[in-house]
């Protein structure tokens, strides 16, 4: 008979494994950001994707293996030592009742469970609200055909252009943005957004955001930021390649930023958040380097190999890992 209180131990193990791998992979990617940058935006984006997605997957696999070891160990001839070892907690599906008396463990699992549930609900609510907002904008926008496909031209004095929609991404452009660009810049802007839509970026970003809830908090946020910046540069690159005119993309970025420029009071020191990113994007697209597709493939293969090795090792060493964790728990 499975003891539900024993799941507290497995939940904690998942959390610790996921955060540990998140910190380790995050550190590798963030410390190697400059090297990744030199490989190209595809490589950066792929590395960030794996650094966000793999830790919870590895944590879940490790916990599943340990749970499997607990459930089916007797079939493999493993002697059940739980009844004789009363001095420590057990990572066991059948003898984990003691976990309920450990206040720290219950509090940690409850705290994280609540945090994760709130984040998931908030994420879902955000998507729902956005869906309504997009329908509202679409309802009063004019649909125009463009070389990049259907575009929704929204009446607004504020220049903006974005792609949104999880299932059917659509490009929204304000009349102000449409009018402040020349034909070539407009094409570049639309090609950039089309690249986002073709790559399925809205849903990818949404899923990554959901998975990131289970990673180490600060690391996951920084990785998502890195992913976002790399994705923008990748779409700039794709747009430039499509038009064979990197300068058009750069000009579109500058023109649109110029139309939105702020004029701070002269005497006041002005903090300009993120302007450096824009300059980076313009420089990167004009430099005309490769998008790093090959490096991205190599990074993908390495990451999958690493994850498979960790999971295989956890499977092969389930017994010593199980005992090591229990010994550790006995000392807490």
């Amino acid at each position, binding site marked *: 008979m499975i003891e539900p209180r024993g799941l507290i131990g497995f939940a904690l193990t998942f959390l610790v494994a996921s955060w540990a791998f998140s910190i380790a992979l995050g550190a590798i990617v963030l410390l190697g950001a400059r090297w990744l940058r030199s490989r190209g935006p595809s490589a950066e984006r792929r590395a960030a994707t794996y650094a966000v997605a793999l830790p919870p997957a590895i944590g879940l696999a490790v916990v599943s293996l340990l749970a499997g070891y607990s459930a089916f160990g007797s079939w493999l001839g493993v002697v059940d030592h739980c009844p004789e070892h009363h001095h420590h907690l057990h990572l066991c599906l059948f003898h984990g009742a003691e976990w309920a008396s450990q206040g720290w463990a219950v509090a940690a699992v409850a705290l994280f469970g609540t945090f994760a549930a709130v984040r998931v609900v908030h994420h879902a609510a955000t998507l729902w609200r956005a869906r309504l907002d997009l329908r*509202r904008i679409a309802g009063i*926008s004019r649909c125009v055909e463009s070389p990049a496909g259907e575009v929704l031209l929204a009446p607004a004095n504020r220049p903006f252009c974005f792609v949104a929609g999880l299932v059917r991404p659509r490009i929204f452009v304000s009349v102000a943005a449409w009018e402040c660009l020349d034909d070539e810049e407009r094409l570049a802007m639309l090609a950039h957004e089309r690249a986002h839509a073709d790559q399925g970026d809205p849903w990818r970003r949404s899923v990554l955001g959901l998975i990131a809830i289970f990673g180490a908090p600060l690391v996951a946020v920084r990785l998502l930021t890195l992913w976002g910046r790399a994705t923008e540069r990748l779409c700039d690159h794709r747009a430039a390649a499509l038009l064979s005119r990197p300068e058009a993309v750069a000009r579109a970025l500058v023109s649109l930023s110029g139309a939105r420029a702020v004029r701070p009071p002269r005497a006041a020191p002005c903090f300009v958040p993120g302007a450096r990113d824009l300059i980076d994007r313009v420089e990167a697209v004009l430099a005309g380097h490769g998008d790093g597709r090959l490096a991205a493939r190599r990074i993908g293969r390495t990451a999958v190999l690493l994850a498979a090795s960790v999971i295989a090792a956890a499977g092969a060493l389930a017994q010593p890992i199980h005992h090591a964790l229990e010994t550790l728990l006995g000392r807490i």
Partner: protein
Amino acid sequence: MRTLSRAGRVFGDLEQKVMELVWLQTSPISVRDVMRRLGGKLAYTTVMTTLDRLYKKGFLGRQKDGNAFVYWPAMTRDDVHRRIVEETVSGLLKKSTAPVLSAFVDVAVKVDEANLARLEQILAKHRRPK
């Protein structure tokens, strides 16, 4: 004639009818006139509250005419559309909803004149024949 999308719930049903009516007028209209043109089935206070709400939201203008107010549209239909889009997009582009969309130029980024000049310089340098 295009009407505001019901999906977005910009106006309630009655607000929508009242706005459509007010937009058709060439001169200010009183609560009693609105009530009569809506079929006379609604209570005076219901129509008055709706007009008052639209005034407070900035969609209608008003002034006293004797004991009662008369109303006129403070915005054209296009202005209303523009305002709705801008307000909705502002909400959408906030950081909390960032996962939902990818903007060409990050709206959180405020580019000042110095940075803009720097960007222009980069472009000019690139244009210069080598």
